Every structure is written in structure tokens, then in C-alpha cells.
């Protein structure tokens, strides 16, 4: 099976302090660490598992600036055979739609049986690259995928719905699968594989190689801090005092 995995390098913001930069349209990035988007690491693992079973190749593609090549190299070390970086620095206003459109321009010349993407990137939270890419390529798709099993040229696909309900689909290939987190155990790259991957060439695609004019769907006007809604009453004092206050509240509510 020939597989494609779309990978985004994103800032790790869950436990970091996030500040708005001088342009007002982006966050201050220099102090953040970057890594493969969480769902994408599951997408990559899903592709590797299929490759281990059926053979074939995996091409990892990232639209990103030069440092995305570090993330692509890790993908090569984990099991991808080829890697392509689309130079994000040469394109403006990259919303989810334009991202998908650029990916399509590169992928249209590659044969594939399946494309794996993450269901969502933790930075822009678009949930759209996978399905839009599928539509642009004219193939089927499923989002929030929690399982893909291939047999007899068909894919048995599970989608995870609200409340833990699973939607089981049968799909034909090629197709695009936008996968959920937690669906497998992403491996670490071994040192030997890292050494081999370090020397591999990463194809870089720039503005010149993309023949058509791409429009974006939307323009980001500006960032702002989420309004503090109801804001919790913060209990203050030493750990002991805080605990006493909390225990008292719990008691007053009649819960103990």
C-alpha cells in the first residue's frame, strides 16, 4: 500500500504561557517548544502499522517553515520512506482550506491508496484539512477515525462519535482518514533509524512549483485573550488553609 501522512509541526501550548505578538495576529513563538501535532503522530503510526502489514511506501508531507524538516526527519526515522516539505514561508494566509489546497497540488502527482491526517491540529483547531483534501482530490473520507483495518481492498473504518458511540463504515480506497488521538501507541524512533533518516533528502516544494493561484477562505483579523467568563473564586492561602476552605465549601453543600 502506498500511503501519505500529512504532518504539522505545532507549538506545544497546553502547559505553556501563550502571549500575543506585536502584530496582534500571532503568538510569541520563540520560547515555545514545537513538536509533531498530537493527532498526526497517531496518523503516522496508523500508516506505519498498515505498511508493516501490507508493504508499500509512506510519504510524509508537511506544509511548514524550514524547521518542519526536523519533524519530517523524525517521521522518516519512524517509518516514512519519503518526505516533502511545502515552503510555508512562500504562501500567505494559510487557513485550513488553503493548506488543504496546497497539499492537494503536491499529492495529485503521487499515487496513493490512503492518506492519513490528524483530525485536528492543536494550534489552529480547524478540523478541516483531511476532509477538504479528500474533496479536492475527489476521493472519499472519514473524520474522527479511531480504527482502520484493510482487507480485500476495502477498509473497515470506525469513527468515534459523541458519548463514545462508534460508527462503523466500510469504505473503498483510496480515501482520506482524519484520525483521532489515542488510537494506537506511537513509537519512538530508534537511534539507528535516526542516523539513516538524517541523511535522507527531503523534497522541498516552493511557490514556483505550484502552478495555480490559490485563494484562502478567511483572514485572521486578530487574536485576543478569551474573555474571562464566570471566573472561579480562587481560594488563597497556604495549602492547609486552601484545603480547609475547600473542605468547608464541600461540607456546606451537604456533600460530606
Amino acid at each position: 500500500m502506498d500511503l501519505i501522512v500529512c504532518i504539522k509541526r505545532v507549538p506545544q501550548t497546553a502547559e505553556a504561557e501563550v502571549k500575543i505578538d506585536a502584530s496582534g495576529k500571532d503568538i510569541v513563538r520563540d520560547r515555545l517548544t514545537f513538536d509533531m501535532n498530537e493527532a498526526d503522530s497517531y496518523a503516522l503510526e496508523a500508516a506505519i502499522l498498515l505498511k508493516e502489514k501490507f508493504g508499500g511506501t509512506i510519504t510524509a508531507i508537511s506544509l511548514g517553515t524550514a524547521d518542519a524538516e526536523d519533524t519530517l526527519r523524525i517521521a522518516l526515522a519512524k517509518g516514512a520512506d519519503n518526505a516533502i516539505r511545502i515552503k510555508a514561508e512562500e504562501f500567505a494566509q494559510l487557513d485550513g482550506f488553503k493548506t488543504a489546497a496546497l497539499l492537494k497540488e503536491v499529492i495529485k502527482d503521487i499515487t496513493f491508496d490512503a492518506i492519513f491526517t490528524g483530525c485536528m491540529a492543536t494550534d489552529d483547531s480547524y478540523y478541516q484539512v483531511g476532509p477538504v483534501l479528500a474533496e479536492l482530490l475527489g476521493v472519499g473520507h472519514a473524520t474522527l477515525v479511531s480504527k482502520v483495518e484493510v482487507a480485500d481492498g476495502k477498509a473497515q473504518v470506525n469513527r468515534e462519535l459523541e458519548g463514545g458511540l462508534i460508527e462503523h463504515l466500510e469504505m473503498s480506497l483510496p480515501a482520506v482518514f482524519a484520525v483521532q488521538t489515542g488510537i494506537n501507541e506511537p513509537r519512538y524512533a530508534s537511534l539507528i533509524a535516526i542516523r539513516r533518516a538524517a541523511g535522507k533528502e527531503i523534497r522541498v516544494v516552493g511557490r514556483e512549483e505550484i502552478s495555480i493561484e490559490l485563494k484562502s477562505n478567511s483572514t485572521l483579523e486578530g487574536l485576543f485573550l478569551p474573555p474571562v467568563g464566570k471566573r472561579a473564586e480562587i481560594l488563597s492561602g497556604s495549602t492547609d488553609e486552601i484545603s480547609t476552605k475547600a473542605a468547608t465549601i464541600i461540607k456546606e453543600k451537604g456533600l460530606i
Partner: protein
Amino acid sequence: MNFDLTNDQKMLQEEVRKFAQTELAPLAPEIDKSGEFPWPNIKKMAQMGLLGVIVPEQYGGSGFDFVSLAIAVEEISRACASTGVIVAVNNSLTAYPILQFGSEDQKKRYLPPLCNGEKVGAFGLTEPNAGSDVAAMESTARLEGDCYVLNGTKRFITNAGEAGTFVVFAYTNKELKHKGISAFIVERDTPGFSLGKHEDLMGIRATANCELIFEDVKIPKENLLGKEGDGFKICMNTLDVSRIDIGAQAVGIAQAALDEAIKYSKERKAFGKPICNFGMIQSMIAEMASEIQAARLLVHYAGFCKDKGMQRFSKESAMSKYYASNIAVDVARKAVQIHGGYGYSRDYAVERLYRDAKILELYEGTSEVQKIVIARELTR
């Protein structure tokens, strides 16, 4: 002149950091308390190839250079000092001497299990009455037919309680002084070889540090490492390499302490503002960060000297170990200071890091011994 890491070193750093922070760091406080040797993580590290970083692929290793080993050891130590030592001892104190001085048969036999996690290695040099003064050792090995018969006691041996393969030093000819010391590869299950006291250590508490007791242990002749009388040379050459990794451990522990200190200083308020706003706290943070960076560069430089094939780099290696371990203790002390009373509580990582850091100035040659090495090289 180029300070950039190569592509493979950068990737190794990124992947090992991620692995160490996700898989090792969460366990560090727990194994510090329990003293339990972290076997599950060792198996995971074996899978990644971290137990044989500098061992060529043909012997089951990963085939990286010594700068890369230092990078890996730094990242592992930053997450868990105990695990950092275990990996360093396996790589540079056990696999390295076998790789460097062993016969082809010895390499084929002993290196793959050390790389794949089947066996962990240990290095038996120190004795109850011989530490800094290596030549004062009392262990002996006398040739009897096809075997050397080993007698003696080794003290403070890292990994010993769980190790399968030991590099052990003993006199084959006491008259020749240090030229009469030989090195052997000893397997754990050899009759007459037992473990003594398990050390209850101040820091790096999960390293299975144990006494080795040899009572008429018959070691096959093939297990002599190098030639008879090569022991001292093997030992010194090995320590030149392994001290780079102590430097790397120091940088990792210090970095962890700085990370904690910065985080805490931004959260903790005194006199109405976060303490990171106070000049004296800032001064400490600036000193810590500068010292760590200087230490890291010394460590990488020592690794670089080894990698480019320099014959003698004892000075560079001793400098990196001496300086890095020195600042690591100081950085950890300052990190505790920045935490105020909380830094003295077991609830905070800096308390552990301070204890972990102290060993760096002691093992594989105390700071005093490093200074002797450095000065001797300069006044030779």
C-alpha cells in the same frame, strides 16, 4: 568553527528528550524513593538503541559518536539522574572498554546483550581500601590452567545489583605495581561471585549500587581484556571517555534544576510580586544559565576531541567533568535556595536534584583527582 549539531544529533536530541520527558521523568521521584532499578524503562531504552549509543551496528549498537552519547546522557539525566547514570555506565564504562580493548570474539559475545537490554553492564574498580588511589587495590587474579582465579572485594559499584556483565580489575602481578593490573570480563552467574552490601545512597538511588565479592572465582582465560598488565591503561583510557558522560549528566541535572527554578520563581510571590522580579533571584538565574552553557560546551568539546581521534584528551575530559560537576552542585543548591523552604521539602524536584548532583563530584575520580589530572597535563 561550527557549534551546530549535525542533523542526526539534532534528531537524537529531540527524540531522546521527548522519550525521556514522557517515559522517564514521571518515574524519577518514585524510583528515588523506592530505589527500584527501572527495568521497564531500560527495556524501552534498549529498543531505542540508547544502551549502545557508541557501539557500531555490527555489534548491535546504534553507531553514534561520543558527542551524541553526551547529548543523549544529558537528556536522560535531565529527566532522571539515576537512569542517566545507568545508561552512562552501560555505554562508556562497560561497552566502551570491551569495544576498544576486547578481541573480536569478546565483542561479538558481550556487546549485543549489553545493547539489547538483555544484560546491563557494570565497572568494578573501586575497593574498600582503594578509591582515588587505584594502585592500592587488593584484588588478585592468578592464572591456574585455563582460568584466572579471582579474589577480592569491590565497593560502590553502580548497576551491580542488576548487572549481568562486569568489567573487573585485579592484580595479576602485584610486584609490577600499576603495570601489574589486568582487566577481566566477568559474568554474573560465575560460581564464587556474590553481591555484598547494597548501598543506601544519598542520591541516584535507583542505580543498584552494590558490593562485589569474589571468592576463588574461576574466570576463563578468554575473558582477559587486552593483555595481562593492560588493566591500568584500560582503566585510565576508559575513564577519559566516561568522564565526558559525567559532565553530560551534570549538565542534564543542572538544566533540570534551572528549569524548576525558573518555573517556581515565576509562580511564587513574595512582597506582592513574583520572586523572579527580585534582582538577587535574577542574578542567581543568570549565573546558573551561563554556567550550564559553559559546562555544556566543555562537554561537547571533550566529546569532539575523542570523536576526531585525538590520542590524548585526558585534560579536556577531566576539565569537562570537573567544571560541570562543580557547577551542577552549585546550580542545584541555588535552585533549592530559589524555592525557599519548599526546596528543602521532598515534594519538590530540586530537593532530589541537589542530592543527585553531589555524586558528580565524587565518582569516576573526585574533583580533586580531576584537578590533579589537569594540572599534571599542564606541568608535564
